[in-house]
């Protein structure tokens, strides 16, 4: 369980880090922009489990769409929605055959970003995720969902391909607090500047 101290520390780093970086580079001349980011890549779950879980697969795919508004300052803000595979388990069922179960999350986040260096962007986000587990046993399949808090931190490196389009990579940490899962993703990111004033 992520303690309240941990959450306070994460929030503190967000509150201290972003304004400090913004102040440090507020003399930059930046246009006000609205940018759409699309990312997709591999996700790895590095959470600890209570016991050894036979048949556990920690790897999967994840992606998200994020729209960010940068109002001429270093700080930007926006919204993000995505889908992340959390883990899957396949093991023999007691009566023969296999049982296969998965946990996936659909996070919806408020995101704050900053660009401490050219081409680099750092993002922090918090919000809720719809966590869904599914189980398939012989011919029967069922799923069930629950909402929980989610926290995100990522860093992107983007190279401009044209005045409006950039391509790069993103390293992304996601914590699904309710079910104590932590994932690290390596993604390809495409950015499209929708407007620039």
């Amino acid at each position, binding site marked *: *369980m992520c303690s309240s101290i941990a959450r306070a520390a994460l929030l503190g780093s967000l509150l201290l880090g972003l304004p400090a970086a913004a102040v440090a580079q507020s003399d930059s001349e930046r246009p006000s922009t609205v940018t759409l980011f699309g990312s997709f890549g591999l996700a790895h779950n590095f959470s600890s489990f209570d016991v050894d*879980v036979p048949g556990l697969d920690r790897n999967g795919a994840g992606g998200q769409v994020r729209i960010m508004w940068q109002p001429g300052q270093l700080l930007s803000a926006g919204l993000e929605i995505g889908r992340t595979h959390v883990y899957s388990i396949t093991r023999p069922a007691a009566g023969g055959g296999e049982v296969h179960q998965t946990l996936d999350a659909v996070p919806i986040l408020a995101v704050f970003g900053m660009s401490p260096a050219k081409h680099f962007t750092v993002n922090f986000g918090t919000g809720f995720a719809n966590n869904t587990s599914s*189980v398939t046993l012989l011919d029967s399949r069922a799923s069930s969902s629950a909402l929980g808090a989610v926290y995100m931190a990522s860093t992107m490196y983007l190279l401009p391909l044209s005045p409006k389009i950039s391509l790069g990579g993103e390293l992304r940490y996601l914590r699904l607090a309710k079910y104590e899962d932590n994932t690290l993703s390596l993604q390809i990111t495409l950015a499209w500047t929708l407007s620039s004033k």
Partner: protein
Amino acid sequence: MATNRFAVLLFAAGLAACQSPLAVEVPEWPNGGGLSGTSALTPTQKQTLEGLYAVEQGNAEFGDTLVLKWNGNHLGIYAEKNRAYMIAEAGAAATTVEIEGYWRFAGGTKTGLARFATPLAGGTTLRLTGEYGDGSAVPSKPLVIRFLRPIAPALLAKPFYIISHHGSGGAPEAYPEAENSVEIAKVIERYGSNGIEVDVRISKDGVPFLYHDSGLNWRLTQKGGLIGPAENYTFAQLQAGVRLLNGEQIPTLAAFLDTVVTATNLHFIYVDMKPSSVNAMPAIVAVQQAALAKAASRGRDLQIYLAITSDSVFQTFLQQPGYQSIPTICELGIDILQQANSMVWSPRFTQEIPAADINTLHAQGKLAITWTVNVSNFLRQFIDQGLLDGILSDYPGLVAYYYYVQ
């Protein structure tokens, strides 16, 4: 720049602080302990040990008075201070009675091994001399208790139900077996209970099963299992995809009650009907009736009550054929209890529980209990009043202490 570095360090500290809850383990004696060479105590020897004791050494941890009470082959030792208890076994050596087991502060994490010895021949004053320790370390701190008097015979003769709140022990991980499991039913008497409350829900395919929370979660199940409302899965899927905290499987109500009948001496089963029970109440009633019939065929003194916990449960209950002959507990008002012909009234302990109402119920041959009392002052108050027939608690050892110390 310094602020940025501090923020990075703070962020790293935040990640590092995310860790699993503290696991509590029952300490075990090295090499199986020292009772292997002893013989079983005679009923008279066991009876002699039961009673109230003054603590002569060890007061800092266990207070001034202890209650010793046998539950089958296990000796329960209950204290008021720190809600401490010990679960022990005993055997007769050449010249002494040897007692050993472990102690624990209920609801906390402090635990350790403990042992006593007393001369087999007895004497004018029965004194148990021993040691206790921390964790799995061999005990070395002195613990000496002196017999004061037996438990009052009137208390042993009168049925008083000490009902464990779904076998939680104050927290899901407080006992070595998970709550709402077949496994906890087998051992819950050791902790001072003669009854247990369990929570019944209905699976997607109509099977009554035991689980407390409205959703599957890591508070009650091992990480890696299914999530969301348990009712969304068939029972086979729950069995395949979920393990309770210590690896146990979620049980059916039928399997749980069968264990109670065949493998315990419990007297009182409180089946809390959760909201989804309205989806298959006939199935729950059928399981209850089958277990009661099996208990009767074995000559067991066992009451199994279905708890009417909400208006929707009550309305569904009224639709059951012959509902007035179905043994129930009513958590609602006295008027509803009379309509349902419930045998037991079980108001929440924070409600007003008028003595006149209890006396009226007693005159009708009915019982009155209350839930869920964990605070010492309230426990003492209810027991001193002497009106209730039982108490539901997360700390059955503490209830046992207050009851038997009277």
